[in-house]
């Protein structure tokens, strides 16, 4: 079975130290250099966002975030991301199920299709969706510049997450327990609800969290597709960008801090889920 981006999408466990070695002089130096680079590239810049937001004071922060247009953008982004996550939980689990438990011609092609949204440049993703669901749609479905376009774009870019977290867990599931349940008279539905679903729940939750985080932070695929109409189809990332372009970095930093808080919450939630799974064995 091919799982091209599985490792990237699947959340990795907190690694077990296999050696538990103490740092030597060389490895200590390596860690220092790596931390310096990571700080310069990621930690200091992200800290600068929060610091700039804080420097504006609570009033400035609150004004930036509750501005009508910004509040509408945040609401649209979070609401659509939640909705898409619900769809992904259902469809992603179903897709993983078909990929693991079914065998048919063309399955490899489906495997590759799952990973396409992960590797495709987001601006290209927008153009791709526009060709089927835009003004020249061969289906006669034109969602461009509407809220449905935001939903569609989120649905496309978050496709791999639930599938790729559920798939490996489902593949390792012990079939004998299901057979035992069936032989004791459980219906297919009962078996699914009582045996399979509980086993998959942590993986589904982890995939849902990743897909929510990805949806909330999406930008590129919306540029051509949603029209970025204020109060209607403008998402949070677009709001931040227009603040940057108006040279209002304080405002941009305040709204960006909201997004960072959401990503942070998702990372913490993932860690909790992973630890609970780890404890269960």
């Amino acid at each position, binding site marked *: 079975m091919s799982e091209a981006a599985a490792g990237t999408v699947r959340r990795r466990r907190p690694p077990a130290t296999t050696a538990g070695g103490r740092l030597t002089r060389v490895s200590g130096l390596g860690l220092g250099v790596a931390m310096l680079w990571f700080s310069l590239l990621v930690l200091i*810049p992200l800290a600068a966002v929060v610091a700039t937001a804080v420097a504006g004071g609570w009033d400035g922060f609150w004004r930036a975030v509750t501005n009508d247009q910004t509040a509408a953008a945040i609401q649209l982004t979070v609401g659509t991301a939640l909705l898409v996550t619900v769809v992904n939980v259902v469809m992603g689990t179903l897709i993983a199920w078909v990929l693991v438990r079914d065998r048919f011609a063309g399955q490899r092609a489906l495997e590759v299709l799952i990973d396409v949204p992960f590797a495709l440049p987001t601006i290209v993703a927008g153009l791709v969706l526009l060709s089927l669901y835009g003004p020249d749609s061969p289906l006669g479905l034109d969602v461009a510049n509407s809220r449905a376009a935001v939903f569609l774009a989120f649905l496309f870019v978050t496709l791999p997450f639930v599938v790729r977290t559920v798939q490996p867990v489902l593949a390792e599931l012990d079939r004998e327990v299901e057979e035992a349940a069936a032989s004791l008279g459980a219906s297919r539905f009962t078996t699914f609800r009582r045996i399979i679903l509980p086993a998959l729940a942590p993986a589904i939750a982890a995939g849902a969290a990743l897909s929510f985080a*990805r949806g909330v932070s999406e930008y590129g695929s919306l540029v051509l597709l949603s029209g970025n109409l204020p109060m209607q189809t403008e998402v949070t990332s677009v709001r931040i960008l227009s603040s940057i372009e108006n040279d209002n970095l304080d405002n941009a930093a305040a709204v960006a801090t909201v997004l960072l808080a959401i990503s942070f919450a998702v990372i913490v939630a993932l860690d909790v889920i992973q630890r609970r799974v780890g404890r269960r064995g």
Partner: protein
Amino acid sequence: MAERQRLRTRGPGRFVTRAIVTAYLFLLVAWPLWLVAQNTFADGFDNLRGILDDPDVVHALQLTVVVAVVAVVINTVFGVGISILIVRYRFPGRRLLNALLDVPLSVSPIVVGLALVLVYGGRSGWFGPGLEDAGLQVIFATPGIILATTFVALPLVIREVVPVLEEIGTEQEQAAQSLGATAAQTFRRITLPAIRWGVTYGVVLSLARSLGEFGAVKVVSGNVLGETRTATLVVEEKYLNFDQGGAYATAFLLALVAVACIVVVSIIRPKEEPR
């Protein structure tokens, strides 16, 4: 064979789920992707020839490749190094660092761009003015594009290498060391061959991600024609200027590389599994 038999006896629900999944993926991914190829070749090769004859587009493609290669090299060296440190050593803050390494995957590309501008911006950034005095312009120049691209693709190599390192354990490394191999020899002769496939997937996925970065690059590049405009920015600019043919052709090239990367990974990966 028994496995197969049992699967086959599972009722008609199988065909329903199969049909739903296939239709969903066809409508969401396959058909739209196909239409881009179709639109690109609507006038034969004119669209492709058009962009390849345009020196600005060619420059953008070259810049994209150079930036992606530099970002992939940085992320590979950093990724392999930090993976070994995290798996093989114990130090305070190891768990926190492990969690932080995933942050770039869930940060909006626009926020990434903003963060880099706030620190490296030439006018008001924390380090920007100092670096500019020293003759290094970061934002609105190639170094900024490289930083943004490196940022967004940072976790990909690590996520592929860490599980492999955990799996192979340390027995062989310890054996090599007890036979007198230096740390460098152990790494080159034992560790590196064992993790080579993990590194390969990480590199291919990072390459796909790096070639396609759009939002973060848009913020830090300034989008100067013929200087800091990358391929993804060309797609946007062409489409908004009603040059749909050019936009589709550039998008087609980018999509081709992305799909090729996925196919390559999906072909090499299973070879390693039945080990």
